[in-house]
Structure formats: C-alpha cells, structure tokens
C-alpha cells in the first residue's frame, strides 16, 4: 500500500490530538466489544496495513517540545516520513517523504515540500535548534484498525477506531508501555448508536488524556533529567555564598553536557561545556576578594588545563561548521565537492585533539580533580568579608567598564588589528560580567546595556574570527599544498571562502566604531556609576 504525505498525517493526528478512551490492553477492549456485538470483519482490514513505527525526534533537553512542536519520524510499509506537529494548534503542520538512510540530524537537512510553509518552518527550527542535533527521544510502534458495530440490517451504525501502541522510552532504563486507545466514529444519521456508546465508555474505559499531552509530558521528564536548576540570587546575599552557588550551577551545567560531549553527538555539547568552564574561570577571577584564594590554586590550574585541551577541538569544530555552511550556501556551485580534501584535513586534526581531550576526560586524574572541586564548592572556606553580591557585582562592572572606555578611546579606524584584539578582551569580560550578574539587576536599563555589550562583542568577535580564521585557512592551504595531491579546485574554493571573509573586514571596523559610540554614551556611563553608587551606600 502506498500512502501519501497527507494520509500519514491524517493517520497520526487523530491518535495524538483527538479525544479517546483508553483500555489497559487489547484483551479488555476485545471483551468489551464482543459484549456489544462489534465484530472485526474482513471488509475492514487494518487501516495502516502494516504496523507503523514512530520516533519522536528532539534535541538534548527537548527544545522542540519546549516550543510546543513535535517532530515525528514515521516508518510505514518501508517508507519513511517526517511529520511536524504543532502541539498548540493540535495539527500537523508539514509532512514529507524522507529519503535519507537514518533520520535527519540537523534542522538544515529538512526541506518540507510546501516551499512557503517550508521556509517558515525551517526558520523556526533553526531558531530553536541551532547547531543542536536532533535525536530519537521516544520510540513507539502502533497498529490502527477499525471495527464496525452493525444494526439488525447489518448496516454499520458506528465505527470503533483502535490504536494499539507499544511505547518505548529511555529514562535511564528502557521502559516499555502498552496502551490501547479507542476512538468512536459516528456514521451520519445514526447518532443514537454513538451517544449510547459514549455512555457505556464512561464505565468501561479508563479516562484518557490527549495522547500528545502525554508524549509532551514524557519529553518534559526527559528534559528535566538533563537540566540543571538555576540558582535564585538574592542581591543582598553575602557575595561569597552567592558566587559559590553560581559556580555550583555552572559546574552542574558542565557535567550535564559531558555525556553528550563524550558521545560526540554534536558540537553544541562541547560548546556549552566550554561556556560554563569559561564562566567558572572568570567568576573565580572576578571574586578573588570574597573567596578563599589560597586553596583555589590547584583548581585554577585544572580548569586552565581543561580549557587548553578543549580549545583546539572547538576551533576545528568552528572551521568545519564554516566549511559546511559555505558548502550549503553554495551547494549548486560546481566546485563545492572540491572542498572535501579540506574537510578531511580538518576532520583528521580534530579527531586527534578530540582523542586527547576524551582521554583526559575519562582519566582518573579528571575524576579526582572534579570531585575535589565539587568538594570545595560544598565545604570550602569562604572569606567572611561582609559585602553583598550586589556590591561586588557593581564594583566589578564599573571597573571593567572604565577599562573598556579608556582602551576604546585610544582606538581609531586606522589602528592595527592587534589593538582591536585587546579591546575585544575588555569587551568579552564586560559582556560576561553583565551576563553572570544579570539576575541581580532585573531592570530594563541593565538589559539594554547588556544587549549593547553583546552586540559590540559579537562585532569584535567576528572581527577577531576573520583576522585569525583567515590566517588559519591560509595555513590549511599551505598544508594541502605540501601534500601535493590536492586538486586545484580545492584551492579555488578556499579562495572563495577567504574572499567572503575579507569582504567583511572593513565593514566590521566601521561597525565597531558605531557600536562603541553606543556603549560609551553618556547615559551608559551614568548608569554604571549609579549602579555602583546604589549598591555601595
């Protein structure tokens, strides 16, 4: 049986969204139907023909579910379909016949047939998923069948649609759950039979929730298991205590991303691992005055080493993403395949540094260091300095902002790239300070200056990337040339890549000037001073 996209959606949607009655198993339902002289007859075979198998596809922490979307992979009669469902409006948004061997791993592999809806859907998926991989999170197999209730003329007066679901979900262990859902389908003009059956169901069936809600809840459970509770910061709290709880949360985040990192599911796990590692390191630097620094030394050394080991892997990841992104944007380009040798070169390098990293992460040394760090967080001595976290935060922000302004004012458009680099570090520091302490200052002005800092940092970050990445690309080109066997097309492609980057160099310098004007504006100076004044009475 060949089923079209629309049919697949219309097979699945009722199970997910329509009201149904639930029976503990098929046998109980059979007994009930037999008692009501409902027979399975040969004229009405199973609707789905063969069992359907479904996978709920979602990211780490089920980000799609969080945004009320459900992505299903459905296999039916050896064909595969992708169905995107909207949990809010309770309907299938898009369906497509999936030709790939496995299921899509990233949002950009998905192209829905309806081009206008497609661009909207893909944009949405992009916003939600970014570089996070899509993984099978729940699996189930189901059969759909219909049985008829007939009157004394043998006329069908009511249809019983039966969904037999075998669910499998992973929550530490693999758990399976069987459920039988029943939906009543009235026949026009025979309303009495339908009403009678509904009445009987009240006692016969287990009241069931809409199945989509149950699936969503299971995904929420999965996500909760992968998530870390964020600390509630009281601005008046002792700075030492508050910093420790921020450090603890960042450490939990690191740990939460470790398993995905080790499995190398996607580049985001390492990225998030590093984001939190950086947070720990810079918080430690900013709060030397309020926590005991003497006993910190070994931890600082450990984090520095960890950071050094993760950096090359992340850099190669970024280069690969860059090459992939370029290839996707120029997929119709004749030379696009010629980038393969470059990709292989980077992949080889990445593999090496990844192995080194994983060896360290799996080592006893790492285990010991992490345990020691966690012990420090739970028991380590804190300085009793009577300063609130608000005071500390305002002080650090003011100091950092002052440094930034003096470094920035020394610059003009003609300054060398290196001068921009120093400022970039100031900017990075300010941006993270503002980010880490944001929960303490829930005001609009604060959010505004944070936003500006983020923009300026991303301009400077791009600028840095371009100057640094450009030389890295040149380096790759040299290596390929030394090998001798690389086709000229590869170098042509590399040339295009470099050209695209170079083109942005000047515009970024101009942008930098604009954004610096914004962040150094009088009201921001005033705001930072006020922040300091209010926090330090």
């Amino acid at each position, binding site marked *: 049986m060949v089923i079209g996209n629309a049919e697949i959606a219309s097979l699945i949607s009722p199970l997910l969204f329509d009201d149904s009655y639930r029976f503990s198993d098929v046998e109980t339902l059979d007994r009930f139907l037999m008692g009501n002289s409902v027979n399975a007859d040969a*004229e009405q075979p199973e609707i789905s023909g063969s069992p359907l198998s479904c996978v709920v596809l979602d990211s780490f922490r089920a980000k799609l579910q969080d945004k009320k979307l459900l992505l299903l992979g459905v296999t039916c009669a050896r064909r595969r379909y992708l169905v995107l469902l909207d949990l809010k409006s309770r309907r299938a948004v898009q369906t497509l016949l999936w030709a790939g061997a496995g299921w899509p791993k990233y949002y950009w592999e998905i192209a829905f047939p309806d081009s206008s809806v497609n661009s909207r859907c893909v944009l949405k998926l992009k916003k939600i998923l970014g570089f996070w991989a899509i993984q099978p999170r729940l699996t189930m197999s189901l059969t759909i069948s219909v049985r*008829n209730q007939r009157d004394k*003329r043998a006329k069908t007066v009511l249809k019983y649609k039966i969904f037999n679901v075998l669910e499998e979900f992973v929550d530490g262990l693999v758990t399976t759950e069987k459920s039988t859902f029943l939906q009543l389908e*009235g026949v*026009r*003009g*025979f309303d009495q039979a339908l009403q009678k059956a509904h009445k009987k169901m009240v006692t016969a069936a287990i009241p069931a929730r809409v199945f989509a809600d149950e699936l969503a809840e299971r995904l929420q459970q999965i996500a909760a298991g992968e998530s870390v509770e964020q600390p509630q910061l009281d601005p008046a709290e002792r700075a030492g205590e508050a910093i420790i709880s921020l450090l603890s949360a960042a450490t939990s985040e690191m740990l939460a991303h470790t398993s995905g990192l080790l499995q190398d599911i996607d580049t985001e796990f390492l990225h998030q691992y590093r984001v939190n590692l950086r947070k720990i390191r810079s918080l430690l630097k900013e709060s030397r005055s309020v926590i005991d620094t003497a006993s910190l030394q070994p931890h600082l050394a450990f984090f520095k080493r960890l950071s050094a080991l993760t950096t090359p892997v992340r850099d190669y990841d970024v280069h690969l993403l860059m090459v992939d992104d370029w290839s996707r944007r120029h997929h119709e380009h004749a030379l696009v395949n010629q980038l393969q040798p470059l990709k292989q070169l980077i992949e080889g390098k990445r593999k090496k540094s990844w192995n080194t990293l994983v060896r360290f992460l799996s080592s006893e040394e790492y285990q010991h260091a992490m345990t020691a760090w966690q012990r420090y967080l739970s028991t380590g001595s804190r300085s009793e300095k009577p300063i609130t976290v608000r005071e500390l935060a305002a002080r650090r922000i003011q100091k950092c902002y002052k440094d930034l302004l003096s470094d920035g004012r020394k610059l003009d458009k003609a300054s060398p790239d290196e001068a921009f680099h120093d400022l970039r570090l100031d900017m990075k520091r300010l941006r993270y300070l503002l980010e880490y302490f944001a929960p303490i200052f829930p005001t609009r002005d604060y959010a505004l200056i944070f936003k500006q800092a983020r923009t300026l940092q991303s301009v400077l970050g791009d600028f840095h990337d371009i100057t640094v990445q450009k030389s890295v690309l040149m380096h790759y080109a040299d290596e390929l040339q030394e090998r001798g066997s690389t086709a000229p097309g590869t170098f042509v492609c590399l040339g295009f890549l470099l050209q695209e980057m170079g083109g942005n160099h000047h515009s970024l310098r101009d942008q930098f000037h604009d954004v610096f004007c914004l962040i150094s504006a009088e009201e921001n100076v005033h705001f930072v001073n006020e922040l300091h004044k209010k926090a330090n009475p």
Partner: protein
Amino acid sequence: MTKVISLFNIKGGVGKTTTTVNLAYASAKAGFKTLLWDMDPQGAASFYFRINNKVKGGFDGILNGTHAIADQVKGSDFPDLDILPADMSYRHMDRELDEVGKSPLKQMKKLLQPLFDEYDYVFVDCPPHLSEAVAAVIILSDLLIIPTIPTVLSMRTVKQLRKFISKEQKINTPFRILFSQVDSRRKMHKEMVAYFLEKKSKAICVNNVPVMSDIEKMGLVRAPIASFAPTHRAAKIYEGLFLEVVDCFLDKKLKSIAN
C-alpha cells in the same frame, strides 16, 4: 463546484439504480465527497446500502421546514459516501410543491443547494416517470445519464424521451446514453452497440455494462459490486464510466477557457 448527475429513464428495469449505486461508489472510492439521492419511492438504492427507506416527517416535513433535509442524510458503510434515502412520500412531491405555490424549480433549488454544496458529486436515482419534481431535478443537474438496453424499441423510447425533455419541457441539461445489460449473445445488442461506437456519437457512453450474474448478486450482498469484488470486470467498467463522467465536466471547463 458540486456536480449533480441524475440517472433517468421512463422505463423500469434498465439499470438506473444499479448504475447509480456503482457510480456513486466509484466516485467516493476516488476520494470525492459523494451523495447518492435515492429519489425513487421504491427505495432500491437505499436497500443496496442497507438503509431504511423512510424519511422523518416525509417530503412534506422537509418542504415546510419542520425537518431539515441535511438531517435526513445517512452515512453509508464506506468513506466519503452518504445517502439521502428514499421515502414513500416522494410520490406526492409534485402535489406538495404545488401547494407551496412558487415555481417547483425554485423550491427544489432552495431546498437542495445547501445540502449539495457539502459534496463534490451528487448522483440522483430518479423514479421511472417524469413528474414536475423529477423535471426540476434534471434541470438542476449538470449531466443526465439515460441507461438503456440496446434494442430498437428501447432506443425509440429514448428518442421520444429526449424530444419530450428538450422540446416540450425545454430542458437543455447535457445528456449521455448508457448501454446497460448488454447481452453479447444477442445479435441485436451487439449490432446496436457496434453501430453507435462506430459513429463515435458523443451522446453515447464509451463504457457499457454487459449482463453479468455478479451484478445481480449485489442484491444478496447488499453492497456496490466493487466493494465486495474489487477486481471484477464490472468494477473496472463502473470506474471507467465514472472517469467518463468526470471528463464531461473537464471538457466543458476547457471549452469555457477557450471562449
């Protein structure tokens, strides 16, 4: 836009009901929302779908608005196929239409249009006499199919009927003649069909329905033939006939584009 196809002949036993039932099934099977209106008080078409030929409140009730016509519709056992059952009261349709006053055509239109709008195709199994109500339905139809047995006498009846419909009733609904119960062992049947096929007359359906004992079985099983014998030759013939019907409307559309 809903297309209404009525099947009519003043002669009984020519295959009107059999054709309507199987055409409607083919239409629903092709995925179109389909209504079969069993207008014949005998209720043979309703019988084939195991439906009681009784309409609540009768035609009278529908006409004076105490019973909505949409509430009389019954679902068949098949997806996308509904039946508006027959009723003995249809015998008095003309008289009742008369009593209401206004033109029967306007009355029928007002009554049926909202219901018909729910469907892609409506097939009407007409009773074998040309009452005012039947005439109104034929006028409302987009196509009239006249099933007939290929004998000289039957063809004469058809000719008279056509003359009556177009000249005296001034009805210009497009029509097709469908040869039904064609018996290939009978020389006259064979010659008649061959003659018209050769003429390539547009008024004759290309598909014709031979005499087949399995078609008679429909009365025992009480279901369209394609539902219990989907690979049977008859099933294919009705499928082909339905495509011819669809084609009639396509033609028209193309013509209107050309104009």
